[in-house]
């Protein structure tokens, strides 16, 4: 497909890897923010092509992984109601709450439906006026315009049987949370390309300046990621720390202004609990008061969730780049995609799922899988 295939050219990939090796004189630790980038890196073995001096750490950019168990418990409570059609992106269905997942609600007869777009959920509400349709609005800034468009459309059309359970999260506060950790060893970031397609990258400039850290807005294909790493390493080698844009075919500094305008009309910034990481101030989006009657948490009486049982899963440390999946004693043994202990093994963009699918060599105790995510 155009704008995909050309960025996978093996010869160009090799040349980029050579060039990175050529300019690298010291040890550098770089984090890719987005789970989609993690998946591309592990699937294509890009980290294995880099010089030993460069360490890639995997970041928190998997919305499925960071949605709190308490929020999933609310989703399960809503999905279990007889009068509700519960709509969600497919990735979310198998993520465990504190005791069970949405798929088990469906297995027990709950009307749980997987949708491709939040707008599809609004159309389901239009066609089922005798039912109450709830959409589980998860996602980073990339997904916020679609979620905003859905609830805006419902309000315009007076589709009052539609509401959203909003668990939207924002990237920049999570980056600052990671950088503020006393043992943080990161020296550069690959910022998430599609988040920046929507938001632009001006908001990263104060972070690069304050923490003296290069941030390179990076795409998702192998050549994008290697160029992003090259640009980051070159800044580090030169002692520079600023925001650069590798993904210029999709990202402008100001971002997508019509999308930002609708997001600002619909959502306001709130504090948000991240699974495995904790509360991050001003790191989430919630519906503004004008949209209160479309806010599932306002229109339903949802029972208080059970406290999460903390087991041996270390996904919180993995999401902050403090551990790798292969560091976990449960990885590939007590924790597999079929029987996950945590969200990073469930989501196709979770670091553990990517390692499980593509890194058999590093973990000889796990069986090869034929399935690709």
């Amino acid at each position, binding site marked *: *497909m*155009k*704008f*995909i295939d050309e*960025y996978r050219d093996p010869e*160009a990939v090799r*040349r980029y890897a050579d*060039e990175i090796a050529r*300019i690298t004189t010291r040890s550098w630790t770089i984090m890719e923010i*987005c*789970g*989609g980038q993690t998946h591309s890196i592990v699937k294509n073995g890009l980290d294995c092509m880099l010089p030993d001096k460069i360490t890639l750490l995997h970041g928190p*950019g*998997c*919305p*499925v992984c960071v949605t709190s168990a308490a929020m999933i418990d609310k989703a399960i409570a809503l999905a279990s109601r007889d009068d509700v059609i519960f709509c969600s*992106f497919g*990735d979310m269905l198998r993520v465990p709450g504190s005791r069970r997942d949405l798929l088990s609600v469906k297995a027990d007869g709950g009307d749980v439906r997987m949708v*491709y*777009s*939040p*707008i*599809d959920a609004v159309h389901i509400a239009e066609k089922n006026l005798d039912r109450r349709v709830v959409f589980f609005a*998860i*996602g*980073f800034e*990339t*997904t916020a*315009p*679609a*979620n905003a*468009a859905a609830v*805006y*459309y419902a309000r*315009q059309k007076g589709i009052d049987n539609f509401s959203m359970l909003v668990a939207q999260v924002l990237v920049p506060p999570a980056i600052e949370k990671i950088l503020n950790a006393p043992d943080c060893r990161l020296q550069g970031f690959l910022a*998430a390309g*599609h*988040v920046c*397609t*929507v938001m632009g990258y001006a908001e990263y400039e104060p972070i690069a300046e304050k923490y003296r850290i290069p941030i390179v807005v990076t795409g*998702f294909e192998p*050549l*994008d990621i290697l*160029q992003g790493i*090259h*640009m980051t390493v*070159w*800044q580090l080698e030169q002692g*520079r720390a600023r925001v650069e844009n*590798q993904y*210029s*075919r*999709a*990202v*402008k500094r100001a971002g*997508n202004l*019509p*999308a930002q305008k*609708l997001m600002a009309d619909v959502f306001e910034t709130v504090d948000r609990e991240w699974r495995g990481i904790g509360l991050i101030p001003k790191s989430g989006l919630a519906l503004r008061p004008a949209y209160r009657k479309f806010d599932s948490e306002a229109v339903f009486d949802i029972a208080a969730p059970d406290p999460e049982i903390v087991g041996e899963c270390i996904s919180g440390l993995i999401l902050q780049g403090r551990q790798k999946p292969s560091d976990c004693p449960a990885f590939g043994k007590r924790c597999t995609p079929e029987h996950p202990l945590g969200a990073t093994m469930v989501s196709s*963009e979770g670091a553990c799922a990517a390692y499980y699918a593509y890194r058999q060599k590093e973990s000889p105790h796990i069986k090869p899988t034929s399935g690709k995510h």
Partner: protein
Amino acid sequence: MCLAVPGKIMQITEGDAITRIGRVSFGGIVREVNLAFVPEAVMGDYVLVHAGVAINAIDEPEAKQVFEYLQEIYGGDIPGDAER
């Protein structure tokens, strides 16, 4: 989750700002896509689509820069040199 797929606009149905819909081809598979956030996009343009919504048009001249950058560094010149 933040996956966005490039596709070519084959048809646009004008609606109000939020109901502007197009038919977009992804390597031959055609889907309905909301075009509210790419008001400048016209038929034949490529857009990046996430969750049924186009989040931006692809800047075609910029699409070559990955290769231009490689050419520049592989030719011996390191990018950024001019700025120092």
